[in-house]
């Protein structure tokens, strides 16, 4: 594990990404404590340009709400949704992929057809439909993102399990009469973990993009300030007040970029055979 972090942090992209992500997590955890202004409260006149009042560095929006406070509180929603929906997608994708790969045959075929079906359906459109039907809330958003993002996990895990189950140590476990559950959980999955970790870090990035896109379309949780909502709300007044849309967008871009960099850094660290070329 220690070596693993060392490898990630030696990769320049991985290092930059990790620093940005840690900063974002700190903002999400402690920002609202240090900065207790509610992002929904009117604090100044509407359309206050940025950098005019030091207490409101990023200005105010069309309702006189603090843009900076919105970005700080929005970090919570983005990171939380990104993380929880990815965990939920893993909770579906890993068992489906493991069962399909381990047992194969009819069960495996059926599970993979099911997976392919969800992979074919246009994911963002399905997420929109799901959230609209379940009514926008943080739970429905997490569920919708998980439902549209688990198939790649299942496919990846299936592939890994397929190749691992022919290994000698797994065959040995079968011969010694271990239960299927033990073999899958204790023998196979731990060895299939590294590509899943890489995929998961990229999935968090995609989930953040999805959440912000849903919120932008007005499908965000109405009780929580989010970056996508801010961009959506500022969209109609972009000609008068560019800062309302520009800053939250940068926040999304930077967080997603950080996670992608970490994903690539992890990929280089965990699959050292690849990516040697071109350096």
């Amino acid at each position: 594990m220690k070596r693993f972090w060392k490898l990630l942090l030696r990769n320049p992209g991985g290092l930059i990404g990790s620093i940005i992500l840690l900063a974002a997590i700190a903002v999400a955890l402690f920002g609202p404590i240090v900065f207790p202004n509610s992002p929904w409260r009117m604090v100044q006149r509407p359309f206050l340009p940025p950098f005019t009042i030091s207490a409101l560095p990023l200005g105010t929006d069309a309702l006189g709400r603090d843009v900076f406070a919105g970005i700080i509180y929005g970090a919570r929603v983005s990171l939380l949704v990104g993380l929880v929906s990815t965990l939920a997608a893993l909770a579906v994708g890993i068992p489906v992929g493991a069962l399909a790969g381990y047992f194969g045959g009819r069960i495996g075929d059926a599970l993979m057809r099911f997976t392919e079906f969800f992979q074919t359906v246009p994911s963002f459109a399905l997420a929109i439909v799901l959230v609209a039907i379940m009514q926008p809330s943080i739970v429905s958003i997490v569920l919708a993102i998980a439902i549209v993002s688990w198939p790649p996990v299942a496919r990846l895990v299936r592939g890994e399990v397929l190749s691992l189950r022919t290994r000698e140590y797994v065959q040995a476990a079968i011969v010694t009469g271990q239960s299927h559950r033990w073999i899958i959980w204790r023998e196979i999955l731990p060895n299939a973990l590294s590509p899943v970790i890489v995929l998961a870090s990229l999935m968090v990035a995609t989930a953040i993009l999805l959440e912000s896109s849903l919120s932008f379309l007005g499908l965000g949780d109405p009780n929580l300030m989010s970056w996508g909502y801010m961009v959506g709300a500022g969209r109609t007044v972009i000609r008068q007040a560019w800062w309302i849309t520009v800053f939250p967008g940068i926040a999304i871009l930077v967080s997603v970029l950080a996670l992608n960099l970490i994903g690539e850094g992890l990929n280089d660290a965990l699959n050292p055979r690849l990516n040697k070329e071109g350096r």
Partner: protein
Amino acid sequence: MLAFIAQRIMKAIVVLLAIVVLNFFLIRLAPGDPAVVMAGEAGASDQLFVAQLREKFGLDQPLPVQLYRYVKGIATLDLGFSFRQQAPVSQLILERLPATLLLTGTAFAISLLSGVLFGILAARRAGTWADTAITILALIFYATPLFWVALMAILLFSVTMDWLPSFGYETVGANYTGFAHVLDVGAHLILPAMTIGLFFMATYTRMTRASMLEVKRLDFVKTARAKGLRDAVIQRRHVLRNALLPVVTLAGLQAGTLVGGAVLTETVFAWPGIGRLMYEALLQRDYNLLLGVFVVCSAMVLAFNLITDLIYRSVDPRIEFAA
């Protein structure tokens, strides 16, 4: 080959059927009794009218019968009725479809062409400043939310520089005809197409670069070099052709993402396509229309996947079609 095509079409039809069934249950999950909602949308809510509606739309029938009717309806392109817009859903979608096809088609062509070109450039100059610049830019565009790119494009090219129109399909009231009309639509098309294109360009650039570098190391490339082939020939005929395979696969898989991109971009640019229609249905909570658009989008993605499958064959004749 014919058997293969037939098989693929059959498979696509099965998937489409599954999507239709999913859709049917999603409509049933939508909040509110459909008949009451319909009555409310039509502006009346007395019991008699609700009962009539229930009978007219077969909502008093058992679920399997309803499902059968729904599937049969879709097979004849009947996607239900939008009470908010007072028109059949299929008619609303057909009116908007050409604009979306124009937009996504243009965006797809731009992104694939430029993405592959930039990817080749980066791979051939691997390690130089050009490669670094392309790689970093692709990384950034890949992480940028589409709706925000759209807004920044408007801010830059419409508000600040006043070069291009920021919304719509054509200049309202200008009534251009012939070539002037084409130019007008083209000017309106540039920003939305570039918005979608940028994200996909980033994806294809990254994929092409990675794939070219990987293929370049393979033994058959060394063989080709040992045979004394010229570098240009090796790059074009051996490396590029093989490197493009994963790019084609990716392009096929991304049809769904393209649809999602169309929803966001058409919303921002008020482009009169089905993405915008989906947004309108969303605002009005018009579930019939929303799910109708969803079915059509899914069908488009399936068709697109089918086409990429066939293209794949022509790019890589080694592939066997056991399906």
